[in-house]
Every structure is written in C-alpha cells, then in structure tokens.
C-alpha cells in the first residue's frame, strides 16, 4: 500500500462529504465510517512502513515514507478525528457538509505532513494544514469577526512557515537535496539556519511564546474544530517536527537550550493564563499551549520519547475536554465558565470531563500521568533547576485542570431547560474517555520499550522522590483550587483594567503584536501606497511635463524650420527669377546658384531636423501617437 494512501483516503472522504449536502442524514455515518476507515489505512501503512519518491526535477522532488514517530501520528490523527467528526455531525452545525468535508481535507493534509521525509513534502503538508485550518476556523463566515480571527491564525502560523522555507533552502544549499537525512550532515552555517528555521516554524505552529495568542483566535471555530486543531493535528505539527528532527540538530549548541527556554516560558505563561481566564474554551486553549510547552521542554531536555508520549496522551484527553466544553456552551449558551457548574444537570458529560481533567492534571494511573512524569524526569535529568521549574509547571497544570473541572462540571444547581447532548455527542465523549483510561497501559513495564521504539528516543528512569514530588505538586494545586472555591473566589472575574486582565489576555502579547507588528506594517503599507501615488509616479509625471515642454519647443522649432525652408525656397526662386530677368549670361549662373543655395538651405534645415538627439525623435513620435489617440477619441 502506498504511503500516500491515508491522505488519499481522507481526500476521497472530503470529496464525498462535500457532495452529501443535500442528504444530511447520511453525513454523520459516512463521516464516522470514513474517518475510521482512514485510521485503518493509516494503521496498515504505519505497520508496513512503505516509502515513495516523486521526482519533479533533477534535484527537486518529494520523499515520503512512514517512518519514526510519523507512524504513530498516522494512526493517532484519524483515530482522534473519528469521535470528533461524530460529535460534529451530532451537534448539527450550519453548513455541516462543508464543515465535515474540510475536516477530512484537514486530516488529509496532516497525514501528508507526517509522512514527509523531506522539507518540500513537509512544507506542502505544513501549509495545507494551515490553509484548511483557515477554512475551519472561519466556518461561521457570515460573521466577519470569525473570518478575521481565521486570518490572524493563518498569518501567525505562516510567519512561522518562513522558517521552513529557510530550512529547506539551507539544507539544499548544504547537501543538494531536501531530505531530512541531510540535516545532520549539513555544514555550518547552513545547519544553524536549519535549526533556527525549524524552531521558528515549530514554535509558531505549536502556539509557543510569543506566537501563543493565535490559539485564542482559533477559538472562533466551532467546538469540534477546536477539538481537532488542539489535539492531534495543527498544533501538534510543531512538536512532531521537533521530535523528528531535534536529534539531528542537537549538535547546534544553542538549539536544545532555546527549545527548552521557549517551552518553559510557554508552559508557565500558558498555565497562568489558563488558571485565570474566564472563558471555558480559552482556558483549554491556553492549556494546550502550556502542554505543548512541556513537550518542547522534554525535547530540549533531550527526551523526544517523553515528548512523544505526552503528545499522544494529550491529544486524547484534550479532544475530550474540548468536547465537554462544547456541550457546556451549547447547554448554557455562554462561554463564561463560572456560569456552567453542570455537574448535577449533565452527569454523563461531567464524568467524561472529570476523566479528562484528571488526565490533564496527571493523576495516576491514567496514562497522561505517566507521560507527564516522563517529561519531569527528563527535565530533572537535565538539571535540578529545570526539574524544579517543570514541577512548578505541573503544579500550575493541576491547578487549572482542577479549576476547569470545578467550575465547568462541579456540583451546582439542577438547571432546567438545558439543551441536552445528542447521542452522537455522548458517544464521542464516551469513546475519548475510554481511550483516556485505556492509555493507563503506559504504566505497564513493556510500554517503555514500545514508546522508545516508536519515537526513536530514550526515557529517563524516574526515581521515587520524583513521583512523590509530582504528586505533592498535584495535591497542592488541587488544594488551592478547593480553598479558593470554598471562598467563592475561583470563578470571580477580573476587575477591568487590572493586571489580571493583562495576564488573561496572554500577558499582553496580542497588544504587543499589534503595537510592534500589525500597526507598523499597516501604517507602512498605507504610507507606501500614498507615496507610490504621489512621489514615485510624480517622477514620471514630471518627466511627462518636461517632455511636453520639450515637445512644444521642438514643435516651434520644427515650425520655424519649415518656415525657413519655405521662405528660403521662395527667396531662392525669386532671386533666380530676378537674376534671369536682369542678365542673360547670368541666367544659367543665377539659377545654378539659386538651386545650389536652395539645396544648401534645405540640407541645413533637414540637418536641424535630424539632430541625432533621440528625444526629438521620440517627442515627434509621441506627438504622432497622441494625434492618433485624439483622432480615435473624436471619431468614437
């Protein structure tokens, strides 16, 4: 089976779904069955591991293959997408056929991305993922704010894509090929460019500082879109790329520390935002950033295996949490998390949310706790300070996971008249919750070898006190949440203009981006456009004016010349006539002289016409054209 089969299958599904708009009942079953089929194809390809090379030119082409962590992604992406499309079909969004079709196309692009074995294929998948996510985030296109948010998300990630273009060029310059294999052997300074480009692209896609705020913009899409984007796709592409390439680039001295720094900054700042934000979906979005920050941290600490495990467990529980948030928003009609408290009203989603939140917080024996410990162990192995900071990030995680659970699905009043979840929605929750629990197999001893084989990395063996410290951090986080809740502070909003508002708004990053990037660029663009009309073209208009002036002078000269020719001709003729009339023997002489003079004069004048100065020709030519134009205009 060709390595492109999963992408083709998803593309075929997208085409099918786009034609089912007139038969809404078929949409859900076809989407779910189709996506499950894609997952099976992905599994088959992941197990057989085929590869393909497509030559476009002598040194330009695509290398695709099911290799390394890409094989895990081949299964994970459609496997997560299956319950998500089931949920989407159940939720009955407007334009459902278009939504499901674009989701399938999006999955196709993501599957292409994870089979890429060179930078060109990667870039193709990478940008197609971005473009389809634009269509998904802007799904509610009648509201322009959604469209603007989609554009913001696309532009932010495209800014990061530049890194991949640069990396592709640098690898080619160094090795004459685009293949990933060349990354490790590229010479300096090309290797440094590759490293910087990869880091830029990964940070932008995985919503790391300073690019994080685009995730808030991405919340404008329908809930299933958020669930898909934030779990195994789009956002995961950055971490996936690092898992795949960081080992080859480890020789660049600043590369791993830079990844660590970015990841740590995001884990802490994203955690703070998630712990404070009043909107349920945005709490989860900030948490996505923070969780990917932990994966970056793991990669930076040298453990791609820990990052890979965390990516998988996070994908499952985050999809689950987003869907529970979607149900809460549908039920209450508000994104404000403190107005939810649906524990009594919607017990089944509440149970699912509890499983998701426990996994997010890292409570054993869930698999997410295992992967989080692997991350912390990797950080500790890299240095005690880093370990302590990773523990602090865990504490934050526990705190915002607890806050989310208590506020969203904590025991509140029994509300009436809520929109009940559809069976398809509940089924999706059930499947994801079951998967979250099933990942507890990671605690079994053989899992370690499997994870190491799947990611190609190694895991640090955690010590007992590390586990104890992680559990203590968890307990501390939850204790804080419970205390705050008892005092009624947990759901309290921020005073307008307070510092907390700044934190909620991602530490003012969007503000900074507007100040430092958006406004200068649009100001510059307006100024240049004005200048283009006035200054640049003014040169041309001035030249035209000079040309006109020259042409007037030239025309006068031409007139004069012609006058002179006529006058001299007349004069010569007169002189000749006079001469012939006066003297017989002078007749011949006179006419010869006259003719000679005539020729001389005419020759002189025509020399004046042919000055050899090109602008005279040109002006005369232009005048002729203008005359033609004028005739045309009049004749019309």
């Amino acid at each position, binding site marked *: 089976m060709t390595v492109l089969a999963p992408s083709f299958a998803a593309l075929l599904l997208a085409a099918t779904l786009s034609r089912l708009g007139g038969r809404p009942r078929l949409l859900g079953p076809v989407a779910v069955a189709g996506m499950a089929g894609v997952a099976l194809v992905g599994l088959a390809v992941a197990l057989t591991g085929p590869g393909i090379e497509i030559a*476009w030119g002598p040194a330009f082409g695509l290398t695709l293959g099911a290799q390394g962590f890409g094989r895990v992604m081949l299964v994970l992406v459609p496997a997560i997408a299956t319950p998500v499309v089931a949920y989407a079909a159940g939720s009955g969004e407007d334009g459902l056929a278009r939504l499901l079709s674009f989701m399938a196309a999006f999955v196709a692009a993501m599957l292409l991305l994870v089979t890429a074995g060179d930078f060109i294929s990667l*870039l193709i998948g990478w940008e197609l993922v971005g473009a389809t996510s634009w269509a998904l985030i802007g799904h509610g296109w009648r509201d322009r704010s959604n469209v*603007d948010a989609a554009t913001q998300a696309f532009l932010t990630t495209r800014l990061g894509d530049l890194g991949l273009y640069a990396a592709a060029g640098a690898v*080619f310059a160094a090795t004459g090929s685009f293949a990933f294999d060349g990354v490790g052997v590229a010479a300096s300074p090309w290797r440094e460019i590759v490293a910087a480009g990869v880091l830029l692209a990964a940070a932008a896609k995985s919503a790391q500082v300073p690019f994080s705020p685009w995730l808030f913009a991405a919340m404008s899409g329908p809930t299933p879109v958020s669930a898909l984007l934030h779990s195994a796709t789009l956002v995961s592409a950055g971490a996936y790329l690092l898992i795949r390439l960081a080992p080859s680039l480890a020789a660049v001295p600043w590369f791993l520390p830079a990844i660590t720094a970015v990841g740590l900054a995001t884990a802490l700042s994203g955690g703070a935002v998630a712990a404070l934000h009043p909107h349920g979906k945005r709490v989860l979005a900030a948490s996505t950033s923070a969780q990917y920050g932990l994966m970056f941290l793991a990669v930076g600490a040298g453990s791609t295996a820990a990052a890979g495990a965390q990516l998988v467990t996070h994908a499952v529980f985050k999809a689950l949490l987003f869907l529970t948030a979607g149900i809460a928003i549908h039920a209450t009609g508000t994104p404000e998390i403190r107005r939810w408290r649906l524990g009594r009203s919607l017990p089944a989603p509440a149970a699912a949310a509890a499983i998701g939140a426990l996994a997010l917080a890292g409570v054993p024996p869930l698999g997410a706790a295992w992967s989080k410990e692997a991350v912390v162990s990797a950080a500790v192995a890299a240095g005690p300070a880093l370990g302590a900071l990773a523990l602090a990030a865990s504490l934050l995680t526990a705190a915002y996971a607890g806050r989310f659970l208590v506020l969203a699905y904590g025991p509140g009043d029994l509300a009436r008249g809520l929109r009940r979840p559809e069976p398809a929605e509940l089924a999706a929750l059930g499947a994801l919750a079951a998967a979250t629990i099933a990942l507890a197999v990671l605690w079994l001893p053989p899992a370690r070898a499997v994870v190491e084989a799947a990611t190609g990395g190694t895991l640090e063996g955690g010590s007992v006190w590390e586990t104890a410290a992680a559990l203590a951090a968890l307990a501390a986080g939850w204790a804080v949440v419970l205390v705050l809740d008892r005092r009624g502070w947990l759901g309290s909003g921020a005073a307008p203009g307070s510092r907390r508002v700044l934190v909620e708004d991602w530490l003012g990053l969007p503000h900074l981006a507007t100040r430092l990037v958006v406004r200068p660029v649009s100001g510059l663009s307006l100024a*240049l*456009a004005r200048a283009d009309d006035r200054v640049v073209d003014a040169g041309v208009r001035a030249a035209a004016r000079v040309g006109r002036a020259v042409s007037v002078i030239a025309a006068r000269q031409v007139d004069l010349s012609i006058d002179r020719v006529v006058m001299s001709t007349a004069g010569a003729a007169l002189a000749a006539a006079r001469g012939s009339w006066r003297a017989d023997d002078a007749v011949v002489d006179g006419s010869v002289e006259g003719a000679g003079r005539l020729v001389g004069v005419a020759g002189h004048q025509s020399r004046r016409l042919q000055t050899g100065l090109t602008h005279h020709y040109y002006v005369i030519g232009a005048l002729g*054209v203008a005359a033609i*134009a004028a005739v045309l205009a009049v004749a019309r």
Partner: protein
Amino acid sequence: MLTAAIFVPILAALAIALLPRHRGLGASPRGLTVVATAVAAVPLVLLAVAWLRFDGAPGFQQVEAVPWIPTLGIAYRVGLDGLSLPLAAMTGLVFTVAVAYPVDLRGRPVAYFALMLFLEGVSVGLFLALDLFLFFVFWDVSLVAMYFLIGAWGHGDAQRSALKFFLYTFAGSLPLLLAILGVYLAAEPHTFDMAEIIRQQPLAGGGIYAALVFAGFFIGFAIKTPIAPFHTWLPPAHVDAPGPASAILAGVLLKMGTYGFVRILMSVLPDLWAQLAPALAVLAVISIVYGALVALAQTNLKRLIAYTSVNHMGYVILGLAVAGAAAPGQEAARALALTGATVEMVAHGLITGGLFLVSGSVLARGGTYDLETYGGLLGRARSLTWLTALLAFASLGLPGLAGFVAEVQIFVGALAVYPALAIVALLGIVVTAGLFLRMLGRVFLGALPDRWREFPDLGRREAGLLGVLAGLVLLIGVVPGWLLGTIDAFAGPFVGRP
C-alpha cells in the same frame, strides 16, 4: 508550424477586420466570438503539438527561417527551447480564454476581436522569435494593439491610462532598440540572429560599450516587467482596462519583459549580469516587499491585484539574479532558481490572468471595484467565490497550486546564493497572504449587504473558462514534473550545471 501559430491569428485578424460589416459574422457578436475563440485556440493546439515533438535537448529546436533583409543580417527566424515553449503555450491559452470571456464590446465586436487576435499572433511571435529585429518588431507592435484595447474598450479614465501605458512602455522600447542596434554592430559579421550572437558573445570583453548596451536592455525590460520604481504605468492601465485586456496585459505582456531578461540580456551579457547580480537581487527584493506592502493598502480590487504583479515579478527577477550570479559550486541552486522564475512567469500568467478576468466579472455585476462595498458573496455566488479563492490562494503561494512550485524554487535558490536577501524576500509571502485573505474576507465573506441580494453567480461560460485556468494551476501545483522537465532542458545547460 510555429509560423502558423504566429500568423494564423494575425491573418484571421485582418480577415475579420476587412470583412463586410453588415453581412455574415460581423453582424453577430456571438458568431464572431465563436470564430475568434476557434482561431485563438489554433496557436494553443499547434504549440501543444510542438510540445509533444520537443525532445528536451539544449539549444533551439523546430527552427523555421526565411531571409528577410539579408544585407542587414535580418531574417525571419523562429524556434523554441525549454524557456520559450512554456511561455508561448501559456500565451496561447490565456488568449484563448480571454477572447472567449464575456466582455462589454461597446458595439464594436469586429475591432475588438481583430485586435485581440492580432495581439495574440504578435505575442506568440515575440516568444518564438530568434531574431532581435523580429523580436523588436513584435515588441513594439504589441504596445500599439494593447493601447487600443485599453483606450477603446476600457472604462474610467481609459484614454489617459492607455496613453500613459503607451508612452511609458514606448519610452522603454527606445533604449531597447538602441541596445539591439549596439549588439548588432558589435557582432562580426553584423547580424540580428540571436543564436549566432549568443554563440559569438560579441560583448564579452565588457567596457563602456557593453555597459551601455546592458543599460539599454535593462531599462527596456525593467519598465515592461515592471520592476519598482518603473511600475507606475501598471495600476492605472489595469484598473481602466477591460477584464480580458487586463488578463493579457498581466498574463502575457509583463512576461515579455522577464523573458527578454533571460533570452537576451542574460544570454548576451552574462558576465555583466553576474557582476550586477547582487544589485539586481536587491532591486528584486525591493519590488517584492514594496509591491506587497502597497497592495496591502489598496481598497480597489484591481489595483490590489495589479500591485501583486509587481510583487510577483520581483520573485521572477530575484530568481533571474540568482540564476545569473557568480556563485561557484551552487549550479544546482541556480538552476532551481531559473526554473522557479520561469514557472513563476507561467503561473503568474494563469493565476493573475484569472484574477483579472474575475475582477471583470465582479465589475460587470457590481459596477465597482471598491472592496468595502461588497461582502458575503459566498452566499450568492458560489462558483465565483470558490474560483477566486483558489486563484487567490495560488497567488499567495499555497502548496498544491502553481505559485508554490515557482516560489519555493526561487527561495531555495536565492537562499543558497544570497541568504540575507532571501530571508527578507520571504516576508513578502506573509504580506501577500494577508492581503489576499483580507480581499477574500471583504468581498466574499461576512454579512451580505442588502444591495447584493440578487448578485448573480458566474455564468456557465465564465465559470468554465476560469475553471480551465484554475485546473491548470492545480495540475502544475500537484504534478509539475512535465513542466519542470521542459524548463530544465533550458535551465540546466544555461547555468552550466554539471
């Protein structure tokens, strides 16, 4: 056969123009459209056959030569290679689509179709010409035909725009003529034969004479391309031209400038080009960033697209600067850049040609190019929206579409030779993404204003014709091997890749 591709449309144009006005075809615009489209497709078909016969060897093929003015070394010589073939074929396609595209004929169908067909023959001829004198004849005549198309079928301040276009580009053809004469005089024996001149390299010694010839060619081609700051004739000409004429102006006529750079300037004066390549690359990057930023600020749909042409032609010039640069050991990267620049010429012809046809259809329905007056058209005009979106995404360089195949090769080549400039140039693709997404958002998404409740979608003919362009853009994006292989037959030997 190439001769037929050039002269069938020209002779048909004469025949149509001389046709009795009151009987037969002249009386029925519809019949005339069908006939003109059929004629316009003849070069396309002939060039497709020529493509099948193309064997991928370096040098000119399928040459047809007839002595014309032997005493001056002028001959009618046409032929093709991996550079001119894709451009000529693209010209045939864009003309066929443009001729068939519905347009307000202003009651003068005969003159319109005659001019279009005449211009097609001339344009195809320019790309196939292997004689500098013939090249110049086609070059100048194309200006005249386009001048009338803008002036007589344009809107707004069409006369003024047409005149500005004509005078400005005509100002470019004067130095071009002098440069051609300079090359002619330098060749020994004097000749206008391009292949012979390229073989002789008469100006290889450099010096002030070569520099003047270089300057002449450069000004002529830079105005036509256009490279900023020689671009100000472009926006008014586009805005006031009818849709199909705009499509040809952007799709075909701009390529004459970039084609001239490769075919003549880089081939005749390679050493000087290599010396000046860093400066040219800087100019190109200025065009890229400047064109994108100015386009971003436009509120007029057509001006916006016109300025993206400045941006895209900047990519082409960047590719050419890299391709001709002195960078030992980077032949593969330079070949990539040259291939990319050539693909960009073809892709830009299809994409921007399509976008200008779209703006013609928008004007015909809404009566204005002002972006802010539109909105929400997706709800009313689905095929218009989807086709525009596809072309816009192609123009911003989305993978899977033709623009990406071109731009990624240019960037990769540029990064190997001028890393810092390449990184600045990359910023251009973020700005173009922003401006096209903004355009799509303003025109097609958001709430539908009441006045457009009855906004009609594309007719079947418009949608079909745009679909042809969009389909080819998609084909080149997904399976570019056939096109890249043809171009590489020229590009590889040109840069001396081992």
